[in-house]
Structure formats: structure tokens, C-alpha cells
């Protein structure tokens, strides 16, 4: 009797394990920046992929870029992949590729990716793709309209004294503020090519210090303070600012005449993922113009396929980006001068 029931239980356990195993093969774990972003992707974007392919997507939240990079590296040492696909900014993409963190994908299996603008499929020497463009996002000049009715025309306005010591700026040097300063005051990014030049740019940013009351690490703190009027203006993500605006908050997100700051995000497959085939199907789906347009509408991010390929209206397009030549984070400078630049920047802020 007892033996029999043990056998039954064991049998059931085997069925259960096998069942889970076959279900696992059809599940793709996808990580994205935690919070609204990851939640919206899971609720609005991934279901279409599951419907088409039958592959379930398990969405997980990932922390801020360098912390996530550290976790991915520790996992790779243990030959594990915390996710089958992960959303990373180009700096992490390049650093990870340098140490062989990403799996190589076959571009032939991702027909949809052909729709992407040039340069968004990052290939190694063997023709394998280690990163596929996911989306772009803007950082803009945001203001609280209760305190500043007029939209700022130029990034130069940030340096004016009218902000009443109520600016909020990101603490990290890769926020785009270095590039904004270089383009606005030094005639372009060339000044960032030498350390002397970078020091000049940092000194210009230091002039903002008396005006800045919050050097933020945490987006939530900035947004809450801006909505409450504790801050009057600052640098912030355009997509999140738009959500606040649609929510009726007294906020404006402006693209100054020098352009908004644009950053690219890529999908990568960690080297030890067992689901490369499914990941390729996922990237095929995510790169299509229809999906890119859907992400623009639901997430407020900037699409990376040519505008003609999508059915976005002018109004929809204007709400996620602008036609102005954007300011681009000079990733090669940040990679080359990483440690030195981070120390200089931090010392400027905290001195």
C-alpha cells in the first residue's frame, strides 16, 4: 500500500518535472528596466509575440545598467544566464561584447531586423550579431509649468539664474549633460576628445552647481519633486515626462534648439542562454515597424525604424521625439576615459 502510493507520487513528480521541462523550452525570459517600463512591455508588447509563436514570455525587472552588468558578469562566471534576452544601453553592449558576454545570433533568422535603421544590428567579425537595436529614448529639458510658463528655447537657459536654485540633474557623467555642454558652448563634441577639453566642459557644468538643489540617482525622487514644485526644471527622460503630462501634471518636456539627448538601447542574449532560437524569433518580432510603432504609442519611446515604414501620425511622432538633429552621448569617450571621467565628474559635484 505504502510502496504503491510512493510509486504513484514519484510517477506524478516525474510527469510534473517533464511537463515543466517541456513548458520551459517554450518560455523565454526577457529582462528590461524595472518599473513602468518592464510592466508595460509585459502587458502591451510581448502578448503579440506569444500569440504569433506560442512562445511564452517571462518578463523580469533588471536594475540600473552598471549594477545589471555586474550581475550578468557574475552569472556568466557561473555559466548561467539570468535572462534569455536583456535590454542594455550601448555602453553596456560594447563593454559586454569586449569580454564575450553575449551570444552570437544569425542575422538570417531575423528577417524583421532588416527594417531597422542602418547600424542597429551590431555584428562581430564572423558576421554574427551580438546586439540588435531595441529602441531609442530621449532625455530633454523638463520644466514645471507653474513656475516657468515659457518653454526653454536653448540648453543655455539651464545656466540662467532664473531657476531659483531649483534644478535637478543626474549625478552620473553619461547623462548627456557633457555632450549638451560641449555642443552648446564649445561648438561640438571635438572638445571632449582630450582630457583638457573634458576638464573645460566639466568646469562649465560646475557653474550650474549653485542652481542645482538635487543631483539625483533615483528617477522617482526627481519626478516627485518636479511634480510637487520642489524643483522647477532639470534633465529627465522624455517618455516618462510625457506620461506625467498625459496624467495632467504641470510639466513640460522641451527639445531645445540644439536637440534632445538621444540614447540607444539594444537587445542582447547572454552567452549561456539555452534559448537562442526563440530569442532570434523574438528579435524578429520586436524589430518590425508595427511593433516599433506600438512601442512608441504605449511606452513613449522613439522608434528605430525609418518613419515612412510606420503608420504613426504626425502628432504621435511629435510626442515621442523630434526632427531636430539629436545630441548623442559620445560612448567612445565614456569608455576610453571611464574611470578618470567618473572621478572628475563626481569630484566636481561633491567637492
Amino acid at each position, binding site marked *: 500500500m505504502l510502496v504503491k502510493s510512493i510509486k504513484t507520487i514519484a510517477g506524478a513528480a516525474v510527469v510534473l518535472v517533464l511537463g515543466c521541462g517541456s513548458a520551459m523550452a517554450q518560455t523565454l525570459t526577457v529582462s528590461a528596466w524595472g518599473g513602468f517600463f518592464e510592466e508595460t512591455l509585459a502587458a502591451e508588447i510581448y502578448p503579440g509575440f506569444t500569440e504569433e509563436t506560442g512562445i511564452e514570455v517571462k518578463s523580469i525587472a533588471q536594475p540600473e545598467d*552598471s549594477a545589471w552588468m*555586474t550581475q550578468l558578469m557574475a552569472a556568466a562566471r557561473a555559466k548561467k544566464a539570468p535572462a534569455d534576452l536583456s535590454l542594455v544601453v550601448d555602453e553596456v553592449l560594447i563593454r559586454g561584447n569586449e*569580454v564575450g558576454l553575449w551570444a552570437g545570433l544569425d542575422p538570417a533568422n531575423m528577417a524583421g531586423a532588416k527594417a531597422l535603421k542602418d547600424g542597429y544590428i551590431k555584428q562581430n567579425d564572423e558576421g554574427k550579431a551580438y546586439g540588435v537595436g531595441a529602441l531609442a529614448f530621449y532625455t530633454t529639458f523638463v520644466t514645471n509649468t507653474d513656475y516657468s510658463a515659457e518653454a526653454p528655447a536653448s540648453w543655455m537657459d539651464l545656466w540662467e539664474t532664473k531657476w531659483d536654485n531649483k534644478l535637478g540633474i543626474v549625478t552620473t557623467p553619461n547623462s548627456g549633460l557633457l555632450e549638451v555642454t560641449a555642443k552648446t558652448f564649445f561648438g561640438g563634441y571635438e572638445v571632449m576628445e582630450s582630457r583638457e577639453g573634458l576638464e573645460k566642459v566639466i568646469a562649465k557644468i560646475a557653474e550650474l552647481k549653485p542652481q542645482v538643489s538635487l543631483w539625483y540617482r533615483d528617477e522617482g525622487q526627481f519626478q516627485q519633486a518636479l511634480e*510637487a514644485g520642489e524643483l522647477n526644471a532639470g534633465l529627465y527622460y522624455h517618455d516618462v515626462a510625457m506620461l506625467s503630462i498625459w496624467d495632467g501634471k504641470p510639466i513640460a518636456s522641451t527639445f531645445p534648439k540644439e536637440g534632445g539627448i538621444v540614447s540607444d538601447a539594444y537587445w542582447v542574449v547572454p552567452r549561456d542562454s539555452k534559448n537562442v532560437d526563440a530569442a532570434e524569433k523574438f528579435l524578429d518580432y520586436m524589430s518590425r515597424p508595427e511593433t516599433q510603432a506600438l512601442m512608441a504609442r504605449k511606452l513613449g519611446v522613439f522608434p528605430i525604424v525609418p518613419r515612412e515604414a510606420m503608420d504613426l501620425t504626425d502628432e504621435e511622432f511629435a510626442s515621442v521625439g523630434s526632427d531636430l538633429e539629436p545630441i548623442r552621448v559620445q560612448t567612445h569617450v565614456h569608455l576610453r576615459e571611464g*574611470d578618470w571621467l567618473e572621478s572628475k565628474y563626481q569630484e566636481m*559635484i*561633491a567637492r
Partner: protein
Amino acid sequence: MGLVPGLGGASVIRSDRAATGLVSLFSFAILAVFFLIPLAFMVVVSFYKPDPMGFYQVAFSWENYAKYFSSFYLNVTLRSLWSAGVSAVLVVVLAFFAVLAIVDLSRRWQLFWAVLLLSLMCISEVIVGFSWLILLSESAGIPRLLEVLGLWDDPRSLSPSFGAMLIGLVTLGISIVMLILLPEAANRDRSIEEAAQTLGTPPLRVVFNITLPIFAPTLLALTLTMFIYLIGVFVMPTMLGRPSDWTMTVMISDKALGDANLPLGAALAVAMLIITVVVMLLSTMVSRRRLL
């Protein structure tokens, strides 16, 4: 350990000792696994080289420590010692006088305060920080209240500032110190104080000339404990302080997590550990000499 009491005899004492030894060996093992090994790992990593493309390279280099001896980090060290020192003294002074007042209350009110202080200790640092952030904000907090009362024409947010950070640090430490002081103050021998009062010494002089000296060693130990505790607090400086108030803890987490430069973060942490221990030893030596 688990023996029938009252049996006596050498063998019982011996096995008792063995059991005690076993227990202390166990606690030492726990300490080694969860404290000493991570500490040793931190010291080892502090000599590694940071790898801008990856994590770190195994090496032996003094480079990270050399970076510590720049004017910037030395300045941050001084500022960390200063803010932890000032807030530790504030915590202990405020807690001491508050406790003296509480122990003179009725039993019921004493209990009320004890429960209140215990519940304060349950609140996370982040919540305490956020509460102060709101209380000091110009739109919802004390400044706004002062404006409504007509006491402040042009209210401004009181944080971030050094004062706001101190308030946060004091809130964190004060319930712990008060709970430690409460039983000692309630059960103290009051005969000398009463004698002095009977002879006509004013109450305030009794406190300063008699009660305070009696408590001096305890207060000193508490100040040092608070100093160590508060120097490691991360949330209050980032949330309530200005960048020029950020302490070493903030810099360490910026380096180790933000910039993924674990070796420099580890070196800064080791340097800070050494300095804290030295400061503590020095102050214990000085105060012992003075108290004796």
C-alpha cells in the same frame, strides 16, 4: 548546558566547560563565515586592478590606495568623521536629558515611551528619510506651515542641507540610545542626588554636577557606538544632504555599484575602516585618562 543543577563534581564542571567551548566555537565559526571572510575578500579585492571593460583583474597594486590619498577623498573622510561625530554627540545629549525626564513620569507613561521608542526602531531608514524629506519640503512641510501661520513670507525647502541630514541621522540613532539608557536611569541610586537636593542645590546643578558625572562612562561608550553606527549610514546623506555633505559611504557605493569599480570601492572601505578604528582607539585612550 542541559545538566541537572546541584549535582556538582569535577566531571560535570569539565563537561560544562566543554559545552561552553563548543558554543563559543560555533559562534566563532558563524562570525568567521559571515564577517571575517567577506572582510578578507574586501581587503584582497582592494589590491586588484579595475578593468574598464569588465569587472576587475587579479593583481597586486597600491594604485587604489594611492587614489584615496587625494585631497578629494581626504576631504570626504574628514566630512564623514565630522557629521558622524556631531550627530553622535547630539543623539546622546538629547537622549540623556529626554530619558531623565521620562523616568520621573508615572509607570504608565514610562511604558508608553518605551513602546513608542521600540516602534520607532522598527521603521526603515528609507521611510524615516522620506518622512523628513516631506516634512522639510516647501510645499507640504514645516516651511509651508510657517507660511500659513504668517511667520515666513517666502518659504523655502529646508532640505537638502547639512542640518536636514543631521536631523535624519539623529532620528535614526536616538531611539536606540534612549532604550539603552532607560533601565539604567530608572534603576539608578538616587541617594546622592537626593542628599544634594536636601542641602539646597538647585535641580539643574544636581543634574550637571552629580547625575552627569555618574553617567559619563556610559554616555561616552554610547557616543562611540553611535559614531560607528552613523558613519556607515547611506540613506540620510543621499536623501537629505547636499553633494557637499555626501559621506564616504556614498562615494563607496558610487564607485562599487555605480561605476562597477569594485577594487577602488573596496580600498576606500578599507581605508575608512582603519581610520574609524584609529579615531575610536584615540578617543577611548584620551577619555580614559581624563576619567581616571
